[in-house]
C-alpha cells in the first residue's frame, strides 16, 4: 500500500490538475495490474462494501487510543473526517508491512464474513502495522467513503497519458457494469474489442450553463432548441433483446424503472437513446413536476400502485447508437432526423416519447419561449449546435443549458453547523427562517453559494454570536439576512413551515438588508400557490 499512499500524498499535496494527472499516470505506469484495476475501481465509485459499522470503529479506535469515547466524538467534528480522526488518535505503529493495495482490499472484503471478535482483532492488527497516510487510506477503505479529489475525468486523463489511448475511448471502456473481480487490465483497457459488454453505456455529453443570453452564439439557424426537462438524465440501451437504463452518475437503474422494459417491443436492438426520465400524465400527455418523480427516486423496487400513479417514460432527445452503429460522430441534426424516424410510429403505450424541438425565428423569439418554461414543467431551454458531434463529458461550445432564473427569497440565518473535510471547522451549513408575525419559522437549510472568505467571515461571527449549542449545531443571534435561491417549491407536512424547496443555496449575503426586512411565511405561501 506504500505506493498507493505515496500516490495519495502526491494528489493531496497539490491543487494543480497537471500535477495530479502526472502522479496518477506515473502510478498507472508502475503499479501491478490488480492494483491498477482497483485504483480505477476506487476512483470510479466501485469501492468495496463497508464491512464494519462506523459505530464499532469509533469504539475500537477510542479503546486503542486509551481515550474515552466522548473525547473521540468531540474530536471528530473538529477534524471533520472519521477516517482521519481514527488515524490521528491511534497509537504509533508497532511494526510495518507492505501488503499491496489489492491485498488490503481483499482483507477489507473478507471482514464481512467473520464474527465480530475476529473482525475486531483483524482491524486492530491492521492499525498496528499501518502508519501515517497508509492508515488513513486503510480507514477510508473500511469506512467506504472513498473520495480524494480525483474525478473520474481526471483519472481517465491520467490513464490516457499512461497508455497512449484516446481519452474518449477510455471513458467508454470504463463505463458500465465491470468489476475488478470479473475482468482484467488487459480486457478492460488494452483489448482490441471493448464493446463486448451489451450493457455498456456511452459517456454522457454534458452542457454548460449559458450565463448571458444566446446572442453570442451566432446565427440562430445553426442551433436547435428543446425544453430542458426537470427529470433524471438517462441512457436507454437496447441490445441483444435486453434493455439497460443508466443514470448520468453511471448507476444502473434498470430495475427502478420496470416500465421501460417494454421498449424492446417497439424499438429494434442496437438502439441507444439519450433522454430524460419523467413522470408522465397519460391523460394530459404532459410531464409531471419533479415532485412526482421524487417518489420514484431511491426506490430499488417499485410497488404496483406507484407504477400506476407515477408512471415514467423516457423523453428521448438524442440517438447515440442505431442498428448497432455508434452515431456519436454524426452531426446532431442527422442524429435527430434518425431519432424522429425511429420514434415516428411509437404507440402511446410505448415508454418512450420524442422530446420536441422548439421552432424559433430569432433569439428574441426564443427568449419568449423560455419565459413560459415553468408552465411546461421545464426548467429552461437546451441549445444544441446542429452540426455538433456527441462529445464526452462537459465540453464548452456545442451544448448549452439556458435555465430560468431561480426563485429567490430573503431569509434569516438562525442555526449554523460546521462542514466536513475541507470545510471542517468552518461554519458552512445553515438553517434559514422567515418571519411569521414576530416569530422566525425555519424553512430550509443551505450550505453552498458563499466564497471561502465569506465562510471564514461568517464562521468568526458564529463563534462570537452563539446563543445555544445542540451538539454540533449552534443557535445564533438572528442578524444576518441571505438571499436563498431555489428551483422549485412544494407543500411538505413534514416541515414546520409547511414547504420544501428544491436545490436551495445562498445566492447573496444581504449585508445591506436589516433583519426586519427578510421575507415572511406569507410570501413563501404565495410562491407555493404560484409555483408549487
Amino acid at each position, binding site marked *: 500500500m506504500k505506493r498507493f499512499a505515496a500516490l495519495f500524498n502526491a494528489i*493531496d499535496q497539490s491543487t494543480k490538475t497537471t500535477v495530479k494527472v502526472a502522479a496518477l499516470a506515473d502510478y498507472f505506469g508502475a503499479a501491478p495490474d490488480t492494483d491498477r484495476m482497483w485504483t480505477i475501481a476506487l476512483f470510479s465509485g466501485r469501492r468495496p462494501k463497508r464491512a464494519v459499522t462506523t459505530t464499532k470503529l469509533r469504539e475500537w479506535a477510542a479503546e486503542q487510543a486509551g481515550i*474515552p469515547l466522548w473525547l473521540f466524538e*468531540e474530536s471528530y467534528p*473538529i477534524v471533520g473526517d472519521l477516517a482521519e*480522526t481514527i488515524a*490521528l488518535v491511534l497509537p504509533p505503529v508497532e511494526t510495518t508491512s507492505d501488503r499491496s493495495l489489492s491485498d488490503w482490499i481483499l482483507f477489507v472484503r473478507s471482514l464481512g464474513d467473520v464474527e465480530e471478535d475476529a473482525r475486531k482483532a483483524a482491524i486492530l492488527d491492521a492499525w498496528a502495522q499501518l502508519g501515517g497516510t497508509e492508515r488513513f487510506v486503510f480507514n477510508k477503505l473500511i469506512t467506504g467513503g472513498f473520495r480524494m479529489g480525483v474525478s473520474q475525468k481526471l483519472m481517465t486523463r491520467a490513464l490516457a497519458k499512461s497508455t497512449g489511448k484516446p481519452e474518449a475511448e477510455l471513458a467508454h471502456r470504463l463505463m458500465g457494469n465491470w468489476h475488478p473481480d470479473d475482468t482484467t487490465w488487459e480486457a478492460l483497457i488494452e483489448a482490441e474489442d471493448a464493446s463486448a459488454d451489451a450493457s455498456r453505456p456511452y459517456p454522457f455529453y454534458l452542457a454548460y450553463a449559458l450565463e448571458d443570453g444566446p446572442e453570442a452564439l451566432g446565427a440562430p439557424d445553426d442551433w436547435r432548441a428543446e425544453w430542458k426537462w426537470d427529470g433524471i438524465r438517462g441512457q436507454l440501451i437496447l441490445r441483444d433483446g435486453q434493455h439497460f437504463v443508466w443514470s448520468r452518475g453511471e448507476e444502473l437503474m434498470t430495475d427502478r424503472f420496470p416500465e421501460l422494459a417494454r421498449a424492446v417491443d417497439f424499438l429494434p436492438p442496437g438502439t441507444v437513446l439519450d433522454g430524460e426520465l419523467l413522470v408522465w400524465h397519460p391523460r394530459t400527455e404532459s410531464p409531471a413536476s419533479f415532485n412526482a418523480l421524487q417518489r420514484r427516486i431511491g426506490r430499488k423496487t417499485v410497488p404496483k400502485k406507484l407504477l400506476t400513479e407515477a408512471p415514467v417514460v423516457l423523453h428521448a432527445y438524442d440517438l447515440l447508437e442505431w442498428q448497432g452503429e455508434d452515431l456519436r460522430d454524426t452531426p446532431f441534426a442527422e442524429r435527430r432526423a434518425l431519432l424522429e424516424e425511429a420514434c415516428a410510429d411509437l404507440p402511446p403505450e410505448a415508454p418512450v416519447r420524442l422530446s420536441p424541438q422548439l421552432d424559433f425565428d430569432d433569439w428574441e423569439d426564443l427568449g419568449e419561449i423560455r419565459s413560459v418554461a415553468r408552465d411546461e414543467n421545464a426548467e429552461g431551454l437546451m441549445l444544441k449546435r446542429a452540426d455538433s458531434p456527441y462529445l464526452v463529458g462537459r465540453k464548452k461550445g456545442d451544448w448549452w443549458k439556458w435555465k430560468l432564473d431561480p426563485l429567490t427569497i430573503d431569509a434569516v440565518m438562525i442555526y449554523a453547523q460546521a462542514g466536513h473535510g475541507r470545510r*471542517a*471547522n468552518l461554519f458552512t451549513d445553515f438553517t434559514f427562517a422567515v418571519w411569521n408575525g414576530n416569530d422566525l419559522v425555519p424553512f430550509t437549510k443551505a450550505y453552498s453559494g458563499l466564497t471561502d472568505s465569506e465562510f471564514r467571515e461568517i464562521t*468568526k461571527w458564529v463563534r462570537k454570536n452563539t446563543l445555544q449549542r445542540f451538539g454540533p449545531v449552534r443557535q445564533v443571534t438572528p442578524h444576518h439576512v441571505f438571499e436563498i435561491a431555489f428551483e422549485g417549491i412544494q407543500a411538505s407536512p413534514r416541515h414546520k413551515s409547511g414547504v420544501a424547496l428544491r436545490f436551495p443555496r445562498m445566492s447573496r449575503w444581504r449585508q445591506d438588508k436589516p433583519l426586519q426586512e427578510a421575507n415572511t411565511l406569507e410570501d413563501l405561501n404565495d410562491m407555493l400557490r404560484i409555483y408549487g
Partner: protein
Amino acid sequence: MGAMSPALTFTDRGIYCAAGDFYIDPWRPVERALITHGHADHARHGHQHYLATHAALPVMRHRLGEITAEGIGFGAPLQIGDATVSFHPAGHVPGSAQIRVEVGGEVWVASGDYKVEADGLSEAFEPQRCHHFITESTFGLPVFRWQPQARVADEINAWWARCAAAGKTAFLGAYALGKAQRLLTLLDPEIGPILTHAAVENTNAVLRGQGLTLPDTIAATAEIDPKAHKGALVLAPPSALGSAWAKKFGAQETAFASGWMQLRGVRRRRAGDRGFVISDHADWNGLLSTIKETGAEHIYVTHGYTDIFARYLTENGWSAEVVPTEFEGETLDAEPAA
C-alpha cells in the same frame, strides 16, 4: 485580603495577584503587568510598567515602542508586595516564561504558552512544581501529537530541495516571531539562499542583537531581483504568501508550518502546496505530561479546546476549570500560525 483568598484570581482585565497588586498578560491597560512573552495577544499596549525576562524584552520594545519596562533573569526570585515571583522557561519562543507566584506558601504557575520539546533556540521548558497550574490548551485534543522536530526538518528540507531542483522558489509561511526563527535553524543552507520577508527579518535583527545565532538571511525587499537568487527559500508571514510581492518570484510552491497542518481539512483549505506540522505549543501528550509533572491539583484551562480538555482532566481526578480569556491569537479561528 482574607487568608483564604487565592493568590491569583481571574478578572476581566486578566490574571490578577492581589498580594502583589499586579496582572499577568492583562488585556486591558493596568498599572503593573508581568508578561510571559512578546506575542501580541499576551504583550499588549498601554500598561504603566512592564516586567518580562531580559530575553523577551527586546522584541516587546520593538513591537510596543516606548514602554517603561524592567527585565528579570530566569529563576531569579523577586519580591512584589507579599508575593514572591520568578520567571521560568516556557520553551514557546525565545525569552518566553512561565510565571511562578508564591503567596503564603501557596504556589501558582501561569504558564502562558508553552511547548515541551526543546527546539534548540528557545530556553528549554522547565516544569514547575506548584499547587495551582494555569495552562493553555491550544492543541488540547488527542488528535494533536507532534513528530520530533528533526523529522519535520527533514521533510521541509526535502521539499525545498525538490522545489530548487524544479526551478521553483519555495515559500514557507510561518509566524514572524518564534516559529520563523525556529525554522531558520532547521533549514539546510546547503540547498540554497534563505530570503526573508521584512516582518521576519525585523524580528531576526532584534533576536540577533540580543546574541541569538541564526543562519545568514537575505532581506527580500521590494527591490530584490528574484533571478539573482535561484533555488531560494523565502520565509514569510502567512498573510504575505500569494501577494503581489510573492508573485514577483515567478514559479513557486507555498507551504505553511503550523500545528494546524495536522488536520487535512485545514491543509486543503489553506490551498498551499504543502503543510508542515510544527508547533510552538504543547501537543496532547505534552500538556498531560506537564500537568502531571507540576504535581498541581488545581488546573485552570485558559485558551484552546478548554471545555473538552477541562472535562478530560476532571474525569481523571484533577480539579479543573475553564477560565475565560481574551487570548485568541493562535486558535483555529485566527491565522493558523501556531
